[in-house]
Structure formats: C-alpha cells, structure tokens
C-alpha cells in the first residue's frame, strides 16, 4: 500500500476557452487532512471534482493509492464526497440517504442497518433516521451528508466547502468535530475552502490556489509565516505591503532610498513587495530606545482603531499607511492619534515577495 493517498500529476482542466486548473502537481498523504484554499473561481472545487470523478481532466494523471483513475466514473472510485449544499436526497429519509451508497453496492440488508446505525451515531444524529432532510436544521443536514459519505468507509473523503452554509458558532464547533473525526478514523480528508481561518485551524497541510495554479503547499505555519508570493501573503491573514527594490542579499530599499534588512528571494534590482504582518510590528515613542537589530521607520499615528481584545494603529510612513496590531493587555503601551512613533520589526519578519 502506498503512503500517498491522492496524487495529481500535470493535471489541467480547460472548459472551452477557460483554463480552470493549470498544471497542478500535488501529493496528499495517507491519513492527511489536506486543504485546498483559494478565492472562488480559483479552481479548487474543479480539482476536487476531478479526484471524485465528477469531472475529468483535460490532461494529466489522477492516482488514488497508486491506481490511475483515468476516465473512471465516480461510482468506481474509492472516494466519497460531502457536497457544498449537502445534496441530500429530498425524497428519502435520513436512513435511506445514509443507506444509499451501501444499497448501491448490494451490501446485505442486515449489514446496511448495522452500518447506518453506527454512522448516524458517529455524527450524533441517533433517533433522527426517519426524518426527511427538510425537517432538519442546516447543521443536522450537514451531519447527514457526512454520515452518508463515511458509512461507505472511503479511504479518502472529499469535502467541498462543507461548512459554508452554517453560521459562525456552528461552523467553529463543526471545525473541531471534523478534525477529531478525521483523526479518529485515520482517513485522508481533502477539504476545499475559501476560508483561510478554517484551513489554518484544521489542516495538516494547505495548498493555496489562484487562477488555476497551485501557488504554495505547506503546513499552516509555513504558509502563514513564509508565504512565497504576494498573493499568498495577502490571501492568508492580514498583510501590509510596502513597495521595495531588492538591494542585495537580505536587504531591500524603500522608495525614499532608505535600506532595511529583510528576507529576500530574488536578485538585486528586482521590484518586490515587503510583506509585514500587523502583529509582528511594534511601536516605540520617539526618543525611546529601539532595541538593536530591529528595523525602524519613523512615522505618525493617523488612526487608532479599538477592537476590544486588540488595537490597530494606522501609521503613516512616508506615502504608505501601515497597520500595526497590538494586544489590549496591561503593560502594552498605547498611543494617541497624531503621535510621532517609530515602527519597528525584526528583519526575519519581513519578506520581499514577487507577485
């Protein structure tokens, strides 16, 4: 048995003129929680559908546990899908919905009853078997969709924005529940979402997609701390961008000519964006001693935004405004609008990124 659950090699999908998925290479490990993250229309759902067999690639190879899927129809693939709008059969009870996949596989009746019972209890819907989908809340429908897929004991479960229709509180609860379920069952989850927080919370690894291309694959921390392109930095979390020119290895030059130290990836002379996360920035009063080794730019507090647990300062540094985030905690200094400050950060927290 292969350790790679799903493997895409050079997968491209074109719909007449539009290239929805562009040369994607990807390996998803056995038992891994993998998220495909990106804005709507980035090709993440199409990628998932090609694994499910609901769409066939224009070219490239999709392998599941080493086996080439080619043009194999969905009913002959060892994966199951949880659909975006659940796609529960409205004319069937919860029991019949969950039993559907087993009935199609001609599993004996007694075993179906047994397995449906286990699956329904797994998603904590015991006693709801005779209800119709329309009689269930959104959260319950979502659990039925999950049970309907899991009852087949797939080795890979595909989830297409499964929590998109739920409200915030329920979504957060389901995130934890899904992650626990995945760990308990030990199967691979391929999870499509446009919600970066959801992806960061649950995933072992994340693949960020944009305009059909897989831009970066990595663990949540890696993606957040070391985005490799401006798009990834912008899409995941909040980022300030300062236009710079790479001056040399580990050094960039601001528009006004001042040089600061930063993590660089490209040759001197290249235009880049210096990405600075708001929470990595700190503010010092003028004349205050800035610890050695920090980059420091003078600026003026233009706005102070109060958010309860935190505060944002919008600091004008030359022509750019930079947002800096601070905990609203005892001992954290606070600043007034109009105050002259020094905006400081560690060199390793600023990455000069190309587009």
């Amino acid at each position, binding site marked *: 048995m292969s350790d790679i659950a799903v493997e895409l090699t050079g997968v491209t999908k074109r719909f007449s003129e539009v290239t929805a998925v562009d040369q994607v290479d990807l390996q998803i490990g056995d038992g891994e929680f993998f998220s495909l993250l990106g804005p709507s229309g980035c090709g993440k759902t199409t990628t998932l559908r090609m694994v*499910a*067999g*609901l769409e066939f690639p224009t070219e490239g190879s999709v392998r599941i546990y080493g086996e080439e899927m080619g043009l194999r*129809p*969905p*009913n002959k693939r060892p*994966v*199951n*899908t949880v*659909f*975006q*709008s659940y*796609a*529960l*059969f*409205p*004319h069937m009870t919860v029991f019949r919905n969950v039993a*559907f*996949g087993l009935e*199609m*596989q001609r599993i004996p009746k007694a075993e179906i009853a047994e397995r449906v019972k286990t699956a329904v209890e797994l998603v904590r819907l015991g006693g709801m078997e005779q209800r119709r989908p329309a009689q269930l809340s959104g959260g319950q429908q979502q659990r039925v969709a999950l049970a*309907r*897929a899991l009852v*087949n004991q797939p080795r890979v479960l595909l989830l297409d924005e499964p929590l998109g229709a739920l409200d915030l509180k329920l979504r957060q609860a389901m995130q934890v529940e899904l992650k626990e379920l995945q760990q308990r069952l030990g199967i691979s989850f391929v999870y499509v979402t446009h919600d970066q927080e959801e992806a960061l919370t649950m995933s072992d690894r994340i693949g960020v997609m944009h305009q059909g291309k897989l831009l970066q694959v990595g663990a949540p921390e890696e993606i957040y701390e070391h985005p490799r392109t401006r798009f990834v930095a912008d899409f995941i979390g909040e980022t300030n961008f300062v236009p710079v020119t790479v001056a040399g290895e580990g050094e960039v030059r601001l528009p006004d000519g001042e040089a600061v130290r930063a993590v660089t990836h490209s040759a001197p002379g290249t235009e880049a964006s210096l990405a600075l996360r708001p929470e990595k920035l700190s503010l010092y009063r003028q004349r205050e001693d800035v610890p050695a080794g920090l980059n420091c730019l003078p600026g003026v507090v233009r706005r102070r935004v109060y958010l309860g647990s935190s505060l944002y300062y919008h600091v004008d540094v030359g022509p750019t405004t930079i947002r800096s985030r601070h905990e609203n905690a005892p001992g954290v200094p606070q600043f007034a609008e109009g105050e002259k400050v020094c905006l400081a950060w560690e060199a390793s927290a600023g990455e000069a990124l190309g587009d």
Partner: protein
Amino acid sequence: MARRSKAALETATAVTPELEQGATRAESRRGFLLALPGYAYLVIFFAVPMLIIFVYSFGTRSATGKTILGDWNLESYRRLFDDFVLGVMWRSLWLALATTVICLAISYPFAYYIATRGPRLRGLLMVLVMIPFWTNFLVRTYAWRLILGRNGPLAAVLSFVGVDQPRLLFTNTAILIGLVYGHLPFMVLPLYASIERLDWSLVEAARDLYANGWKAFRKVTLPLSMPGVVGGTILTFIPSFGAYIEPELLGGAQTMMLGSFIENQYYAVSDWPFGSALSFVIMALMLAGTILYFRRGGRTV
C-alpha cells in the same frame, strides 16, 4: 369591528391589536377582490352549466326529441351500462391510455434532452415544441388525413416496404397517431419544467455513492421529476379521453369515442338526458381519478 378606510388605517397612530387585525382583514379582502373575476367566470360558465346538465340527466326524451323535465327517472343512467356504450367507453379508455403511455415514452427523453442543453439551444428547442400551436388544431388534424390517406406519403412508404393495400385512415391507429401528435407538447412542457428545475448535484451525489447512470436516474432523477410526469399525464390523458376532433376526422364509424358519442346524443338523436348523464358521470369519474392520481403521485415525491 367598524370598517376603517384605508386612510384611517394609515394615520400615524400607534398600533393597537384592533388596528392590526383590521389591516389584516383589509388585506384578505383585497385578495378576494383580485380573485373575484375568476370566481365569477367559473360559477357562471362552469358550475351553473354543470348543474343544468345534472338536472337534465334525470329527465326524459319525448318521441319528438324534446326533453321532458319533471318526470324524474334514472333511465339515462341505466343505459350507461348498455353494451354499445360500454364499448365506446372502453375504446376511449384504451386509446387515451395508449396515447398517454406513448407520449410519456417519447416526451421524457426529449424533455430530458432539452433540459440538459445550454440555454441557447434550450430556448430554440422549446420554440420548436410550441410552433405547432401557431397553426389551428383543426387544420393540423386535416393535414394528418392527407398523410394517412390511401394515396398519402405514409401509405406509399408502407406499400414500398411490402405492406399490401395499407389502410390507415379511419382506424384506431389513425386516431392514436393523431392523439399522440396533438398531445405531445402537453407532455413535454411539464416534464421539461420539472427536469429543468432538478438539482443536478443530487445526481452527482448518487453517482458518487456508487450508483451507475441508470441507477442514479431510477433513484433520483425520475422520482424528483414525478411532478412533471403526473402533470403531463393528466394534461394528456383527460383531453385524449374526451377527444372529439381526432376521432371525428381520422376515425370511422367503427371507431367512435366518447366525445363524438356525446355530441351525437345532443345533435343527431336529440337525447339530451342521456347525453347529460354520460357527460356527468365521465366528469365525476375524471375528477375522482385525478384526485386519486395526484395523491399517489404526491406520495412518490
């Protein structure tokens, strides 16, 4: 409670339960007014004539063909069980059933095809389905006489492939062809409407859950398009059962259907009580059948 004018209801005072109730009542009164022309039409042109028919069906035909009201009896109802009458009913029933089944068999795949095309082609195909309505139905049925006639194109084709002296016109087959032709759009339209509304992700879900194409159709597409099947079946069966033009133009003396038979009672033999009894019983049977069918159809969805 006193009726309040609209102006009174809209004066800027705080709302009390009485005011709120008044507004709700005014709302439902407006709803009734909107429906009034429809109600009036149905009462004058449907309920009243039905009542007249009902009363006439208990009358007697005089020797001169006049209807004698007053000497109420059930003679007309007894005659419904005459062999000849039962024969006409039986022929109407099976022709209508055959029409419905053939229409359904042709229309379902066609409606499915239309509903799964792109928006452009879909619009074009729907127009093609409607085009026959632009020509008078009578004219179109006459056209079938030419097609089915002894020297018509169909007969030519049949004799070419070896059928000797094909006789099409004035047979049950001719009526059936005419009925299927005439009712096809009425089957296609409701089927198209319900298939087009279908949530295709349900079919994908079925495929994902190990159903092959046929199983996914049987378990998901077909049950969810049952409203269209029920609607189309009723729109086809009922008018076929009482069809008049097709059997008149395409059928012969041996192929009488209920529509012509009832017409004969009123005009040819002036037996209004019998015609009325026939009409009334058929109406009642149709109504009962439709209600039953809707109930069953409703359950499968």
